[in-house]
């Protein structure tokens, strides 16, 4: 034990003696590590953010498909879906995107109105009892997870004001209020599908904890949105369906496909999996791009380790002459690798942490987060996990160590007399 400690001590002092050469390696190494960690940190945070939002999403969304494209869904379909056992509340959703030419940005518009909600627990639906006993009352109703239902909107933290209750009123997201220079009691005008200007009175401004949810959002009355988009009154954008038992979701989805062949039911699980895959894929692509840089780094490490200066050779020669064995010199080189790798990993991790969580991921955000015009401000939740550390360790330290084995061995077998003489 004492011996290993002494060798480590010698390693540290010898690294310090050649600090500029080692600093070069550490700088490049840290840069590579920082790049990889940045990707991991950022994707992880984005993934987490997306999953938090999706946790509140409805279990099942039914869209109408016409000619392979998403189409407005007739509200009559709700009654057909209602006939399926195990289905809870059915909520028609009215929403769409609005391109605002003045500010060059896209808004998400959403209409709210509670009157269309069908409720399987209500009295007129007693003919369709749920196949399994379910908790009734408040608890059961609390399970309705729909971002766009009135219930949830109320749950979001409104910075100021209230939700629109009358026509020509609206609640807007922070991003919208910023680009349109308006706030509570201000006005916002939107141009409808016929080219007519509609003016809305702002009664609330959102400040969601997760700005990703409401930044570009404008909530207006359902009738207003029908007028704005020129939608027929018996159509909705899509239908959110609550399913009591999570295990029955795929079955209910297939039932809906059977009853209404022109629809496409989308399960929450599918959306979550798509997001997972998407983010993994994105970070994987950038990782692959960095493999080239990693290879270049390994060549550099190999080169640095091979090109021993005459001075270093002499040093090893002297060590061997005074009784060090080949194994000891190899251990010295092993410690050298460990010290350099861990210094670089830690430095790289700190750089990446600052880059992502303090500087807002300025380098990678455009590639990793997707594209939209009105971006929500980024406040990523810092999160470091052992798995990320492992992944980067595997991708950087192992190639580095592997590429220095042969040069270190070559150095270790040097004959003392030849070097000292030469």
């Amino acid at each position, binding site marked *: 034990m004492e011996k290993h400690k002494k060798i480590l001590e010698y390693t540290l002092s010898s690294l310090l003696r050649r600090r500029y050469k080692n600093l070069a390696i550490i700088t490049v190494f840290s840069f590579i590590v920082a790049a990889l960690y940045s990707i991991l940190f950022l994707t992880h945070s984005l993934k987490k953010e997306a999953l938090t939002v999706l946790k509140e999403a409805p279990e099942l969304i039914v869209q109408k498909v016409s000619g392979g494209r998403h189409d407005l869904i007739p509200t009559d379909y709700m009654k057909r879906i209602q006939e399926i056992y195990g289905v809870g509340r059915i909520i028609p959703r009215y929403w769409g995107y609005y391109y605002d030419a003045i500010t060059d940005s896209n808004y998400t518009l959403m209409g709210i109105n509670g009157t269309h909600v069908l409720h399987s627990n209500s009295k007129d639906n007693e003919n369709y009892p749920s196949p399994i006993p379910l908790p009734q009352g408040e608890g059961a109703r609390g399970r309705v997870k729909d971002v766009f239902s009135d219930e949830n909107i109320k749950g979001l933290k409104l910075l100021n004001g209230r939700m629109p209750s009358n026509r020509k009123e609206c609640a807007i997201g922070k991003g919208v209020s910023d680009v349109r220079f308006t706030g509570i009691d201000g006005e916002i005008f939107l141009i409808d599908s016929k080219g007519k200007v509609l003016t809305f009175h702002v009664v609330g401004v959102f400040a969601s904890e997760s700005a990703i949810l409401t930044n570009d959002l404008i909530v207006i009355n359902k009738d207003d949105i029908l007028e704005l988009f020129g939608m027929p009154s018996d159509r909705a954008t899509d239908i959110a369906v609550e399913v009591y038992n999570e295990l029955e979701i795929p079955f209910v989805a297939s039932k809906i496909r059977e009853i209404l062949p022109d629809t496409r039911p989308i399960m929450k699980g599918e959306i979550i*999996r798509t997001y997972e895959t998407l983010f993994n894929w994105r970070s*994987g692509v950038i990782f692959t791009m960095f493999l080239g840089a990693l290879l270049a780094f390994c060549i550099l490490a190999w080169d640095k380790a091979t090109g021993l200066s005459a001075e270093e050779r002499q040093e090893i020669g002297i060590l061997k002459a005074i009784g060090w064995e080949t194994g000891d010199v190899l251990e010295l080189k092993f410690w050298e690798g460990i010290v350099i790798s861990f210094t670089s990993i830690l430095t790289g991790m700190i750089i990446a942490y600052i880059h992502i969580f303090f500087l807002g991921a300025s380098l990678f955000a455009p590639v990793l987060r997707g594209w939209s015009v009105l971006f929500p401000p980024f406040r990523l939740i810092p999160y470091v996990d052992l798995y990320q550390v492992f*992944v980067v360790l*595997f991708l950087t330290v192992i190639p580095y160590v592997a590429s220095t084995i042969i040069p*270190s061995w070559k150095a270790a077998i040097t004959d003392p007399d030849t070097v000292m003489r030469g």
Partner: protein
Amino acid sequence: MMLHPGVLSLITGSLIVIVMMIYASVLGVKIFRKWNVNSSSAEQLSLERKTYLVSTIINYVFGFVILSVFLFIYTADDIHRLFMGAMCATGSLNANPVGWKVLYTKMVVFFMSAVWVAFNCIDQRSEDYPLTKTKYKMLLFIAPVAILDAYLQMKYFLGLKPNIITSCCGALFSEGGTGVASSLSSLPLKPMVIIFYGIIGMFLLNAFISLRFQNSISKYALAMLALIVFFVSIASIISFISLYVYELPTHHCPFDILHKDYYFIGYPIYITLFSGVFFGMITGILEPFKKRLSLNTIIERAQKKWTVLSILLILIFVVISSWHILFSSFTLKGY
């Protein structure tokens, strides 16, 4: 599926391991064919130097393999969200059953390279390197397994399709099902507890005997018992230890105990079990080599040290895994 950061790093790591293993094996064959301790030719000197290179490479490979076992399980755990029906690593491994084989080959490579490192350790302590030829013959067995492991791993990740509906631990390790996992889960509780503690007791008793009396039989018995302890312990983890950790009489998963929700208790359990079993086995494996005069005392000393280590590790394993059984409010008396 390939473009997951964890998968990429596993594959990169495996490729490096393969390259290193092949290089070491080529050197190994050269050394094995031309090795002659009594010669003092330049060739023998260069061979002796090359043994340092090979042993450094295998030491590193050993380190990488240990890391890759954990990274593999961790990655399988991480990608479970991509599969319908998966809730932990079991689900991801079921999504493409090759995954289980990868896990087994990784364990085999782990044990083989550990044995190699132990042989190397003994060999280098002796003046005339008597184990050199044996060592390099062994390399030729480890390399194919490492290559097989990398191949299976590649096949596993390439064969993962996100639309697969898989079954997770709840289904695989259920008492009603068929197959090895289910039969392990449905092992009767009481006899299993008795067998587990009985085998561990026998192992410890034997270890003490072999410490006290230096006879070969106790060493071989120790190695055999270590192997039995390994399988019995894995069966016990699935059959009853996990139940106490989860405090759930129906949940038998051997991977969920690695989760944060259970305070990562699985890591110390598996690490102590694996290393304890290894140290128990290696004492027996090295026993036949004691006949060589130059190795007798070295091996004896090492055996003593390893037996003590094995006793300690297995004791820690038993204490950790019994902790929940003794101190949690959960009881299986009704079962």
